[in-house]
């Protein structure tokens, strides 16, 4: 299956984290439980269109689209 940016998937679609495109951001994301192989889902989007809230590792995390775009999912 082809890789997509996390920001390209629809709200409510469950995807699996594959890899990251930015090393510095990936460290922060890994620590917060965004691990390759983990399932991830966009839960909701802030009223002004950014940041977004995702469900990952059993909890809800918010992050800016800029950071979310560094997560590649399949």
């Amino acid at each position, binding site marked *: 299956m082809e890789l997509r940016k996390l920001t390209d998937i629809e709200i409510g679609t469950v995807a699996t984290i594959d890899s990251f495109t930015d*090393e*510095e*951001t*990936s*460290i*922060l*994301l*890994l*620590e*917060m*439980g965004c*691990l*390759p192989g983990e399932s991830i889902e966009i*839960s*909701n989007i*802030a*009223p*002004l*269109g*950014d*940041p977004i*809230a995702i469900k990952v*590792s*059993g*909890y*809800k*995390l*918010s*992050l*800016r689209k*800029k*950071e979310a775009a560094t997560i590649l999912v399949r």
Partner: protein
Amino acid sequence: MNKQFNVALIGNPNTGKSTLFNALTGLNQKIGNFSGVTVERKTGKLELNENLTASLIDLPGTYSLYPRSADEHIALEILNSTKNPDYPNVVVVVVDATNLKRNLLLLTQLIDLQLPVVLALNMMDVAQQSGIEINVPLLAEKLGVPVVAVTARDFQGIPALKEAIVQQFEQPTLPSSTIHIHGYAPEVIDEIKNYFHINNDYAAFELAHHYHELNNLTQEKKDAIEAIGLKYNFNANKTQVAETIDRYNYINEILSDTVRKNKPALEETRSNTLDAILTHRIFGLLIFFVILFGVFQSIFNWSQYPMSVIENVFISIENYLTAILPAGILTNLIIGGILPGMSGVLIFLPQIAVLFLFIAILEDTGYMARVTFMMDRLMKNFGLNGKSVVPLISGIACAVPAIMSARNIENWKDRLITIFVTPFMSCSARLPVYTLLISLVVPNKFVFGFLSLQGLILMAMYLLGFVSALLAGWLLKLFIKTKSKSYFLMELPVYRMPRWSNVGITIFNKARTFVMEAGKVILAVSIILWVLATFGPSKDFDAIETKYAKMSSENTTVELNSSTLESKKKAEKLEASYAGLLGKFIEPAIKPLGYDWKIGIALVTSFAAREVFVGTMSTIYSVQGDGEHLDTVREKMLEARNPETGELTFTFATVMSLMIFYAFAMQCMSTFAVVYRETNGIKWPLIQLFTMTAFAYLAAFAVYQFLS
């Protein structure tokens, strides 16, 4: 014999760590600062059994030993140096039982540092309700550390937790390393171990990562570690990625047969429904503004009564002391300097308490995280961050606790800009100034029959404060350059009912911080101002004394009663005092703004704290009593005329110019002091003082010239 030892409480944010801290220590807490830094240091007495009492320290919430903010840095600093006075004998790791995976990352790092740990599984009640089954004995066996299930909010599991702490203190069980750290950088780890004479791989690995930010290392040691790193091409990012992934693999293995989730968590479903409404594109923002408006209203409505009680108490004390103390310079100092200084501090307590009541509730329920989430996009444009919302809102009460609450902003640039712009928010000290000035020129009328015109102008001043904070942020964004990237990563915790004891303790602590931080500065400055306003060149003072002594002896029966005479004398003395001389000295500079030397005195005296303006005005316009009688000050000010030209002193243009000046000028020594400490130097508070005051001057000048 009593033995004393240190226990540290550590855990991710939102794990109920403070609730557990409160449950373990009760009100037996001490708040201070960690030496050298301004992070709040919360300690308490933990009685374990008849013979054993520990000092419990609450370390700031952190996700890992790789700190991102000033708050998180503390844990690293303490745990990396056995010589640190706070170095713990036992570490209690608090985790949210409903969210074990991410929470255990920190635990595995602490185990690898060979620290005796106790794992406290908090919120077990919620976990059970959500259908999460945790096999506690098996978890303890697999991890090799004591595991205790607790529900801090109703004190369940506290005795067992205490027992486990005692056990880890007397006979620590230290499991072997959870992951193979040595393999990440074998040569670097070995050389650092040799250099420092330590035998722990992870401690050496941590040093390789964090040496540059550890205050306990000498420059020589830092250089040595740097050299070792360079020699072997140590890649901090790559090794951290490897470490984190390995840790999660270990955790997944641990959790594979110890935790079972039976049904979708009810709390989580409810939380999602709430989020759909509370962060909705339209309703979300609408609800936020309604809440903000309610908080705003309550700050003023609820605190009115207690504020007048405090005022009256101080008036009674003043009257009482005037009656019993012998007349003299010391009595004058107490009544004219110390008492007003103290009341000037305490008068703001009600507003601060009400504000932090709301902030504590909003934070405890999880709503504040959503506000941060919703506002980030807007704040980002102005060099700020979603997390700047709490400091900005707190700034409505007082900039001092507000600036301190900016500590959890990870990015230094975002935090600095937040600190810089917070004093633009209209704080409670500006309120009495605005109230007096508005009453001078704005008629007490209603528009559309129900909106008070004076109230509207006041609201406009608050809006002006907020807008200028944003604009200042936008400007600063262009000037401040940093290497670190701005990012926003924040957990959205599940909504919960507020824990009232936490709310109460937060209010208490914030109020105490305000009194200690702002209080001492305001008090000291009040005394200095009293000296400036009481003393002057003795030649001039003697002349006044003689003049009035003569007048009162000639004038025993006539209409001039002695108290009027007394207040006239007071006003003349103020004019001749050092404060008066200063006012006259700066008159040429403030004339283009529409002010005379009398207003100049008020500017000088309120430079340390804005609210002093009202008191000074009442002294200058020789009102009997003090600033409490607003009506009389107002009347005298309305009648005041320029003795040379005969024109009114407080014209519309002058008053507007004054309001603008007070809106922008940084007239608050306490803020200056707190910015100095939070930014670790004199540079930023000086820049802030200078730019804000210069801007205030220019804006007031423009307003006066335009209106007059």
